[in-house]
């Protein structure tokens, strides 16, 4: 199918990121800068990881697992480094000049975590998918060189579902980075005051390692199981972030169930219809100033056709 498939993959992979960007970032230049700075920090972390991998591969014969673990640690360290840049300071009241179009970031440390985490997630998902999606635009798919080297077709290959699995992975990666950034920054924020402050960062690190380990099982053909567990882990991470941001598990479950009910009952469409009805009703109420102008015309008689036109 070529280009339509590639476009579909990009839309499916990045629609959550685009929706978040449009809703919370696009209107604010500072947040756009912070979003791209997050991407830059992730790129730097990958650069350091690759240098370490390059060094290790000249010493050790098989460096896959150790390189993977180091890469995850470096990524989490980059998150801490980003926080240390001083972003926490701009969330103080009056610490940043609020120019027109720039949001006041007072009390918005979780919003900043979302913005920067989204930047990291988007660039990592792009890094992960763009070569594969570029190949999907052509007549073939990935996998031939390995088959030529080994002489056998991988029986655990994803086959025709490969674009779907790449899309789901990209989606997960983007949202996971948001949650991990919220967690790590919460630890960074509270580390000096609370002995239990390390828990969110530890949760982020463990979940990052666990999710990455699960991904490595995809090559053994456990795609459905892996994605099911990863989605479960993502839900747990989101629920935990909700707790960090002041919510409770109960409110999170209620929120989700209410969202599902609203989606099933098409609440948003009903609201839109109600709003339109309200607007129409307001327009139907006679406009007093017009009546007055009509009176002026009546008395003046200079333009008798004008009220008819307005009424119509």
């Amino acid at each position, binding site marked *: 199918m070529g280009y339509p498939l590639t476009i579909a993959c990009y839309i499916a992979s990045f629609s*959550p990121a685009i*929706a978040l960007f449009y809703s*919370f970032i696009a209107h604010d230049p500072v947040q756009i800068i912070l979003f791209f700075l997050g991407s830059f920090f992730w790129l730097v972390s990958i650069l350091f990881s690759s240098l370490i991998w390059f060094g290790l591969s000249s010493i050790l014969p098989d460096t896959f697992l150790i390189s993977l673990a180091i890469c995850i640690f470096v990524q989490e360290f980059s998150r801490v480094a980003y926080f240390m840049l001083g972003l926490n300071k701009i969330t103080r009241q009056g610490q940043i000049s609020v120019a027109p179009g720039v949001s006041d970031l007072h009390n918005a440390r*979780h919003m900043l975590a979302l913005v920067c985490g989204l930047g990291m997630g988007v660039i990592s998902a792009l890094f992960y998918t763009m070569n594969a999606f570029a190949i999907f635009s*052509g*007549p073939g798919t990935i*996998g031939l060189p390995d088959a030529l080297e080994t002489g056998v077709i991988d029986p655990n290959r994803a086959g025709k579902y490969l674009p*779907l699995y790449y899309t789901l992975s990209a989606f997960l990666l983007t949202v996971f980075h948001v949650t991990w950034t919220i967690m790590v920054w919460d630890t960074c924020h509270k580390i000096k005051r609370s002995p239990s402050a390390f828990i969110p960062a530890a949760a982020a690190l463990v979940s990052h390692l666990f999710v990455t380990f699960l991904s490595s099982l995809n090559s053994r053909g456990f795609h459905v199981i892996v994605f099911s567990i990863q989605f479960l882990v993502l839900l747990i991470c989101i629920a935990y972030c909700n707790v960090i941001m002041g919510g409770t598990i109960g409110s999170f479950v209620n929120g989700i169930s209410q*969202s599902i009910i609203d*989606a099933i009952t098409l609440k948003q469409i009903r609201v839109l219809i109600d709003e339109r009805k309200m607007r129409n009703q307001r327009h139907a109420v006679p406009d007093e100033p017009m009546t007055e102008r009509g009176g002026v015309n009546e008395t003046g008689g200079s333009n008798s056709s004008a009220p008819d036109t307005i009424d119509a």
Partner: protein
Amino acid sequence: MFNQPKEDGSSGYPYCGMSFRLSNMAAGNSEICFRRGKNDAKFFQMNIDSGDAPQVCGAMHSENIFAFPTPIPTSPSNETVVTSNYMMVASRMDSFGMIPEVSVGEISVLTSMISVLAAARSMGTQIEKWQKASNMSNRNIFFSFFNGESLDYIGSGTTAYQMEKNIFPQKIRPNRADRTHIHPIHVNEIDYILEVQQVGVSQGRKYYVHVDGERYVQNKTQTDRVIDRIERGFRSHGFDLEKPISGESRVPPSSWHSFAKTDPKVQSILIAPFNEDYEYKRINSMLDKHKWTSDEKEKAVQEMEAVATSILAASAEYVGLEVNDVIAKVDRTLISTLFDCMITSNFWFDCDFMKKLDGGRFHRLFNSYGYNEKSTYISMETHTAFPTVLHWLTIFALGSDKETLNVKSEKSCSHLGQFQAMYTYTWQPSPYTGNFSCLKSSIVKKVMISPAVDPSIPEEEMNIRYSTWMESVYIIESVNLYLMEDSSFESTMILFAVLSALISIFVVGRCSESTFIIDEGEPAAEGGEPL
């Protein structure tokens, strides 16, 4: 590994696909190609330093191989009187496909060629008896392997032209009138052209013999005797021979037609596993390649053996040799070995038999990319090794070292061939032992190019009586291999993308900035804690 047909004939995913760019140096029709291929048309492309002009477009050419078990009569001068009659046992040696380098031609070429080679080998082991019978009856057998037959019969057309002009197998040189010359074979000396086609794919155990009805009735008695011998040969191996012969019967596409255009008497005897329609649909195709099961191979070997026996029986009948178990005995092991070497193996010199026959000669001569393809396509530049392979096999089949046992070196062997035109002496190893010896044979490998496009005979230029196939030089560039998966899920992916976008809008639409901005207490912030 990829693209393997399943038992039901379909082939499942994943496929291995390939894309490439093919640049043609010249295009148009044969006439344009011929004109652009001339040296004076390539003046501006000529290398000033070397004087070489690049190949742009030109005629298909390669080599025909002719093997004479009994020496051709010689003439003391340049006489061209009719002295002999001949039966030509013919087989084609080329095939083609959409991708020229992938034209193996297993059924188009190889099985028939093996049958003829087996017959020739059997004849070679009893050569004295055959020569004696030929000398007494003045009738001779010779083997012809025509090249370019898949491209409008270039090889047989060229041979017919040469016979018509009395320059086959060699041109008599007037300035060498003092020497003995091989008597030219004229086309009216050819009585029969016995050709075999598509051996190995018969439906059941039935073969057919095809003759031209009009010519058959002119010499019915002798032809019937020959066909009867062929039938006996098939029956001895459990095959039936059907003879759809009548005054109206016509010969399927075959090399005979080239000679029939030149001479009104030459008769065709075509042995094939089809009657009026081709049963095998992969002739001259890159798909003419099988995965042979052991049963299929066994049956194909039996067919080749039966065909070889029939050739020997027909030939013996023609030259007046009594057909018995010795004369018509075919080496079944040789057929099986050649099947493995020529058909099952990935390249001509992969098996032990062919490696020994090669004796290190092939890679010394042709260690280039083009020569390492297992292909029977002729091309414009003669870039396959097949003519050489077949030439060596023919020398093995009909060559003899009985008179050259004292020759112990390649150099002294080559000296034997000087100052005579009757025999060739080839320093060649035995495919059984690998030991080199000097083989004496009467085999000629003649360059063939269609008279219609042969620059040396301008009067025949673009004569449509002969093949006008030309080839533009092409370059295959940017070859990419890739894996192709089932695309049935791609439409679902588009639906999934739309759904994903809608759900994202819905979910994010329920959040606002206040979702993420939590006032955890102003006093704490004032006290130094950023919130």
